């Protein structure tokens, strides 16, 4: 952010507003592709843009650390793992079988009904319209401090869980003699 012009363009309410709606457009379009595209490779690529857009949301909401974590672990780790899974289990560039139109219609109808139900519930509650409270200027220091004090036990448990999962995954895909 050393470039002064960029800083001026992004400063203030207007810049944040534009950034929010651009991110929303990217997330909406790519999430539709990720959920409904016929080709599984195309869905994984759409998920890439969707996850990047959600990292932008985290940045707007005031946690730069979570945005970077999302990019490193989700985009750099989980999505690459998914792509490896697709390429190892699918014949490349083979399309999914076409969905049956009845199933497609039923799922779209159910999705729209569920979305309407959730939004009617959201509309019933008088939510706080403005974020009046400030967020810390840098969230890395308080997050790190909390991880070794208040959240020490969950932190250690998450580490052990991650280790066990990786060992278990390596055990599951070991080469077996038949």
């Amino acid at each position, binding site marked *: *952010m050393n470039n002064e012009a960029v*800083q001026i363009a992004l*400063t203030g*309410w207007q*810049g*944040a*507003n534009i950034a*929010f709606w651009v991110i929303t457009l990217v*997330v909406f379009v790519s*999430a539709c592709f*990720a*959920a*409904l595209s016929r080709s*599984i490779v195309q*869905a994984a690529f759409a*998920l890439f843009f*969707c*996850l990047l857009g959600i990292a932008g949301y*985290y940045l*707007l*909401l*005031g*946690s*730069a650390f979570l945005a970077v974590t*999302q990019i490193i*672990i989700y985009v750099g780790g989980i999505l690459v*793992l*998914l792509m490896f*899974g*697709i390429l190892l289990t*699918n014949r490349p560039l083979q399309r*999914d079988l076409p969905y049956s139109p009845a199933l*497609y219609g039923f*799922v*779209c109808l159910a*999705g729209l009904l569920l*979305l309407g139900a*959730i*939004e009617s519930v959201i509309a019933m509650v008088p*939510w*706080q*319209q*403005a*974020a009046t*409270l*400030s*967020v*810390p*200027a*840098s*969230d890395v220091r308080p*997050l790190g401090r*909390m991880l070794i004090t208040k959240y020490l036990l*969950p932190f250690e448990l*998450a580490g052990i*869980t991650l280790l066990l*999962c990786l060992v278990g*995954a390596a055990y*599951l*895909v070991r080469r077996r003699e038949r």
Partner: protein
Amino acid sequence: MSESLAQTMGFAATHPVGLPIYLIVAAILFVLGLMACMLRRNAIGILIGIELILNAAILNFMAFWRFRGGLDTDPAMSGPMFGVFAIVLAACEAAIALAILLNLYFNFGSVEVDKIRRMKH
């Protein structure tokens, strides 16, 4: 960078949209993920739907944390902390799920969920 990027951009105290907009975005992501889970045959496609649902949940946590009431400061950092733990557990889940799917592929030659009725021969 010593400051949060959001602070640098000048919208740490005010925010362009209200909480309901974020809740609606998260609801749309959740419903799309659920539709992917119902619609897809390929098990990896179902996993993509689950990732969308997880992201919708984390986005809800972050939005509620940003628009919280009460104390002026939140030393516990509950919103980002929820997100970090959820992302770590999502990594565990993806690793295990892909290991199981690779095993299914070795055993059956396919990961289409409507063709597989057992986990092994």
